[in-house]
């Protein structure tokens, strides 16, 4: 086995400084990381230390490792022979490589050294020279050593006693309490767990009441329970100390917030899951734990610790999760991931280089000087462009859909010949890809098209896509073949090359400017001679419905953190950003699985920092998280939850106000809708006989605030437009009522009914106005009185005859309607005005036979009715109630006093109409009587 050593020793500059640089070639890393190869390979790290430097050396740039020691003495050469015998511990090798890579690794080196000694499988052979390290150097070494955590030392002492075979025999299910321990030393996770006392058995008692509760009730109960006091700090653990453990948190921990625990646990490399399974190493339990979980714990006999135990665990666990098998597997896995990412990165870089050179050659041969945007150096590109997938394998997530899309496109022209009779996707000419932004829909479409050698025509929201333009531009291109592809085909003889795929991006962005574009596009989907891929965000929009039948629907899902991990690691590696794999999940959660945003975050971070680890990621993800706007339901859920208030509130006041500002229109309404459906946590401890009163008092306070908030709202949205009062409105309308009634929700959060009721009110107001216009000459009253006195009695008078007498009652009803100038429409509207169980007419009118109803309608339509006002225009007729006892003289006067000239022609019309109507009514009256 060849031992790969790449060391460069350069001695003696003009200034008399000796500097040494050393690097480990990538191939070495690769080799080492491959388990079978590493196995017996001896690794000699040849390290030269330059301890002599009177001035800063110039070769710093080339040096990946540079130690600068004391200034007084001559240079010493320290050579470490680090032999990895028989062990698979790639971590060691990798650590070596990674730590050596850093320029400022004096500490790291020391750390590395101690790690070597901490691991039984590595023998460190210090060369003699090492002993002769300058006093300065030595002091520093000691310092760092003492800085190191205690247990490391302890373990180092323990190490020699321990035989490697024993470690090997540790069971893979480290952490299971039922497994007897074989090693007595206490450095595997499992052994440490043994030392931690079990949780108080009272946590495992299931409240019989809880067993029959449904999800909402349970949720309500947990939110009722006292929130963690939060006055306890979790201790600092060693890096990655929970590696390889699968932890489940359940119930409410007495002092520390559960979310905080989860965060800490995953920070130290533990896998935190929500449900208990065979793989679970331990459960951290608090009170009010779910009955299902407790059952599982008992069934599977899983180690169960409480909060205290968790803290102990954090303190006791050695770095990297101890020497247990599970920990090692976890480490191995992590390294495998990293290695893959690096490998991938190298490969890409290689390809990129090749492409660049190829391009350059081509350009040289073409001797054209035109610079294309794609030729820009990578540094100028956005990361999202730079690292956009170029190969199907690089697309994160949605593997099945991508394959489906590929096979569809591949067989498109075959299917075209058979007239799209195939099953599923093969029966469609067009495909609709839908899904949230930033998950690679467009990319996937492009990559698939490219991989099959299609030419892509893309239209997106930046193009006008009206019906007319689509007709002009698309129709012609849909039946064409690609010119570029045609010439390429001469070279490659691939038939696909002449083919075009049309990608319509952002279809749901076809706005009012694109008049008729949607319908036209769906027409094209039916007839297209070219594969058509449509992309949209929200398929459920009404305007997208036209595509339901014409396109095969491919729904893109958000890629999970797992799916994105390797890709992100690759990018990070290529950019030299140190990305802690543990935090990817956190970034994923913060961005709502938006891979584009994560890459953007990374590129932003890379400008200022070299690492992305737990400490800064938390801050980063917090700032990015704010961009996500909460839905009204979530806002209300948070504002009405008991944990949001009190001395250990989850949110402080300004955070609560911000919750309101997530949706300041809906939050107050939703609070109003739901503030009564909680069980306030303030009721706890209230004697049962006072409970009702206390609850009512709380509601009274809340409703008082809500009512007052409406006045503030009026100042904000009314004529005064005092928007500076908005935070005050937030307090009054949402936070204060919430603080009173916060607790567990009984049942689900309801959507506000105010909107519906308000529009209903508007509708009835309008109807009432119409009724008033029609009847006002007769009733001489205003809307309100019409509603309150006339309508209830009119309803009775206009419906009773029909209900009681059937057809014979029709005349009576019609007569009354004509008297009040009511139309049939008004009659229908009137009937809707009944309120209360006795007043509502819909049930009562059911007893009217359909024969009567149709007779009523027929009769109504059979003659024309007196009208006081025509809704449509300004042609207006007089009422027909001119009393007869007035001498004609008045008529003359009246006509003459019509002094407004423009009224004159109308007057004539009026007379005609008037006569007509009077006549007709008289006729009908006759007929009826």
């Amino acid at each position, binding site marked *: 086995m060849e031992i790969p050593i790449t060391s460069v020793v350069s001695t003696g500059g003009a200034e008399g400084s000796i500097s040494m640089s050393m690097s480990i070639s990538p191939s070495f890393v690769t080799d080492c990381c491959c388990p079978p190869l590493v196995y017996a390979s001896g690794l000699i790290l040849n390290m030269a230390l330059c301890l002599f430097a009177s001035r800063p050396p110039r070769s710093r740039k080339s040096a990946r490792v540079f130690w600068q020691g004391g200034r007084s003495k001559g240079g010493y050469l320290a050579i470490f022979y680090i032999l990895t015998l028989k062990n698979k511990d790639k971590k060691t090798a990798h650590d070596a490589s990674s730590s050596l890579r850093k320029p400022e690794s004096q500490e790291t080196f020391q750390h590395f050294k101690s790690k070597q000694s901490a691991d039984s499988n590595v023998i460190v052979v210090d060369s003699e020279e090492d002993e002769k390290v300058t006093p300065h150097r030595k002091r520093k070494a000691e310092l760092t050593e003492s800085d190191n955590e205690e247990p490391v030392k302890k373990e180092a002492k323990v190490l020699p006693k321990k035989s490697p075979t024993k470690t090997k025999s540790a069971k893979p299910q480290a952490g299971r309490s039922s497994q007897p321990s074989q090693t007595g030393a206490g450095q595997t996770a499992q052994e440490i767990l043994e030392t931690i006392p079990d949780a108080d058995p009272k946590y495992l008692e299931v409240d019989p009441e809880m067993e029959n509760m449904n999800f909402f009730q349970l949720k309500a109960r947990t939110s009722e329970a006292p929130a963690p006091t939060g006055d306890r700090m979790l201790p600092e653990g060693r890096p990655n100390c929970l590696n390889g453990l699968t932890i489940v948190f359940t119930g409410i921990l007495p002092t520390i917030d559960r979310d905080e625990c989860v965060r800490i646990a995953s920070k130290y490399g533990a896998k935190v899951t929500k449900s208990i399974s065979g793989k679970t190493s331990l459960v951290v339990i608090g009170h009010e734990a779910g009955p299902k979980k407790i059952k599982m714990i008992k069934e599977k006999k899983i180690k169960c610790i409480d909060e205290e135990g968790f803290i102990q665990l954090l303190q006791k666990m050695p770095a990297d999760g101890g020497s247990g098998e599970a920990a090692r597997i976890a480490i191995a896995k992590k390294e495998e991931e990293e290695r893959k990412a690096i490998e991938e990165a190298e490969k890409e870089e290689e390809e990129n280089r090749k492409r660049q050179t190829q391009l350059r050659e081509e350009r040289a041969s073409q001797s054209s000087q035109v610079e294309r945007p794609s030729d820009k150096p990578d540094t100028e590109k956005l990361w999202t462009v730079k690292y956009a997938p170029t190969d199907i394998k690089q697309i994160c997530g949605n593997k099945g859909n991508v394959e489906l899309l590929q096979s569809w496109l591949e067989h498109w022209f075959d299917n075209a010949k058979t007239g799209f009779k195939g099953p599923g996707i093969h029966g469609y000419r067009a495909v609709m890809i839908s899904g949230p932004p930033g998950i690679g829909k467009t990319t996937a479409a492009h990559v698939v098209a490219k991989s099959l050698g299609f030419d892509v025509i893309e239209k997106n929201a930046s193009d006008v896509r009206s019906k007319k333009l689509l007709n002009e531009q698309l129709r012609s291109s849909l039946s064409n073949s690609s010119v570029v592809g045609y010439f390429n085909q001469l070279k490659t003889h691939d038939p696909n090359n002449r083919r075009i795929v049309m990608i319509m991006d952002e279809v749901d962005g076809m706005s009012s400017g694109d008049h008729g574009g949607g319908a036209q596009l769906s027409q094209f989907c039916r007839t297209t001679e070219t594969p058509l891929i449509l992309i949209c965000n929200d398929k459920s929009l009404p305007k997208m419905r036209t595509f339901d039948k014409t396109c095969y629907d491919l729904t893109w899902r958000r890629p999970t953190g797992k799916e994105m991990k390797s890709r992100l690691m690759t990018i990070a590696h290529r950019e030299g950003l140190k990305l802690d794999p543990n935090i990817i999940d956190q970034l994923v959660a913060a961005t709502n699985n938006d891979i584009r945003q994560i890459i953007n975050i990374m590129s932003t971070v890379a400008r200022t920092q070299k690492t992305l680890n737990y400490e800064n990621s938390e801050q980063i993800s917090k700032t990015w998280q704010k961009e996500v706007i909460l839905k009204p339901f979530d806002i209300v859920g948070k504002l009405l939850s008991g944990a949001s208030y009190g001395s250990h509130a989850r949110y402080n006041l300004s955070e609560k106000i911000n919750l309101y500002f997530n949706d300041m229109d809906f939050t107050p309404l939703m609070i*109003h809708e739901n503030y*009564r459906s909680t069980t306030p946590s303030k009721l706890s401890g209230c004697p049962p006989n006072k409970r*009702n*009163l206390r609850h*009512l008092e709380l509601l*009274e306070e809340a*409703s*008082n605030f*809500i*009512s*007052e908030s*409406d*006045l503030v709202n*009026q100042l904000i949205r*009314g004529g005064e437009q005092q928007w500076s009062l908005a935070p005050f409105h937030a307090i009054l309308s949402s936070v204060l009522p919430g603080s009173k009634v916060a607790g567990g929700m009984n049942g689900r959060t309801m959507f506000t009914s*105010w909107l519906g*009721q308000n529009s209903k*009110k508007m509708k*009835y107001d309008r109807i*009432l*106005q119409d009724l008033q*216009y029609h009847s006002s*000459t007769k009733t*001489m*009253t205003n*809307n*309100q*009185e019409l*509603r*309150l006195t*006339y309508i*209830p*009695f*009119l309803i*009775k*008078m206009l419906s*009773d005859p029909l209900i009681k007498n059937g057809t014979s009652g029709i005349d*009576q009803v019609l*007569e*009354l309607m004509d008297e009040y100038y009511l139309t049939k429409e008004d009659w229908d509207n009137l009937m809707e005005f009944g*309120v*209360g169980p*006795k*007043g509502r007419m819909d049930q009562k009118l059911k007893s009217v036979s359909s024969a009567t109803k149709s007779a009523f309608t027929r009769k109504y339509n059979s003659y024309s009715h007196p009208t*006081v*006002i025509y809704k449509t*225009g*300004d042609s*207006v007729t*007089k*009422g027909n*109630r001119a*009393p007869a006892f*007035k001498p004609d003289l*008045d008529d003359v*006067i*009246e006509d003459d*006093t019509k*002094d407004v000239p423009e009224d004159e022609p109308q007057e004539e019309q*009026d007379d005609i109409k008037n006569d007509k109507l009077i006549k007709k009514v008289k006729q009908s009256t006759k007929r009826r009587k």
Partner: protein
Amino acid sequence: MSLWADKYRPRTLSELTFHPRISKQLQVMASSGEFPHLLVYGPPGAGKKTRVLATLREIYGAGTERLRVDVKTFNLPSGRKLEFNVISSSFHLEITPSDMGNNDRIVIQDLLKEIGQTESLDFSRFENAVMSPNTREENSGKKKFKVVIINEAELLTRDAQAALRRTMEKYSASIRLILICNSTSNIIDPIKSRTLPIRIASPTTSACAGVLEMILKKEPHAKKAFPDDNEQRNIIFNRITHASERNLRMSIMMMEAMYMNHDTVSITTPIIKPDWADVLHELATGICKDRSVSRLQQARSILYELLAHAIPAKLLLKKLTMTIWDFTGTLDIENKSEVRKAVISASSIYDERLSLGSKDIFHLEGFITKVMVILEKHVIN
């Protein structure tokens, strides 16, 4: 066949049966030719509009009863068009600017100016000269102006009222305004000072009974259904008047409904109330009896139903308060007067909020919850 309330509406001032002093005053004003702007106010069903129309008839004659409805179109500054209905005869106009909500100012400005700037031509002088040369000319004087009746004047916005005050003076030569409203509390002082306020109170119980009796006299069929005995009839009338809260219109309606529903009406015949009043009564008693969170939830849906069906929130609050007031009499309560005081104070607070705010349900619920707490604290179980 109209409803009795409309059928037997008095048309002239002399036909009016109650408030004789006001009728007399109006008559004098109408005949004198010196007709001021009027502010007629009083509770619903007291006969405000009837009196005003009778006065108009007194001034102009029966021509005022030839009514028609015009649709006027107004252009808002924003370019929107508004349609507005105007009831008019040749002598007067009747408008309800509050129909236009916040745009009532435009109606007041445009419409009143338009009418005010056009003098009415008066041919009566020539006619009189032709017909009866000896008639004195004083008759013509009273026809120089047009009357504009403004309904629901208390709902006019501040802007509209401000627009009104100058118009009233500037065009006083050609128009007279009659503002009709339920209460003057919302009317700005400058307008009050420019008008002659006339309060039309609700008729007394006996006046009400008199009107009802008169109607029965004219409806011989109906009279048969009612008991012959004057005493018994009076008891029925009193019950009706009480139930309608001396709203004469409502009383007549109720009487007619009783007659329609029952062949014979006796003193025990149940009075038919409007449906919304029944619902409201049930709601109020429910609140008093069962003071619980679930009742509050029920109350919300009932309130929503009433509000959506165009029952005004202020009326709801008033009726609820009155019913609860009555109900506290039947409850076993520690300190009755304190409780009543608390209820009234809560009611007035929320009444103000109803005026200032826009979401009625918030305030009504606040009131109901408050009442529940007050009662729950004091009721002895």
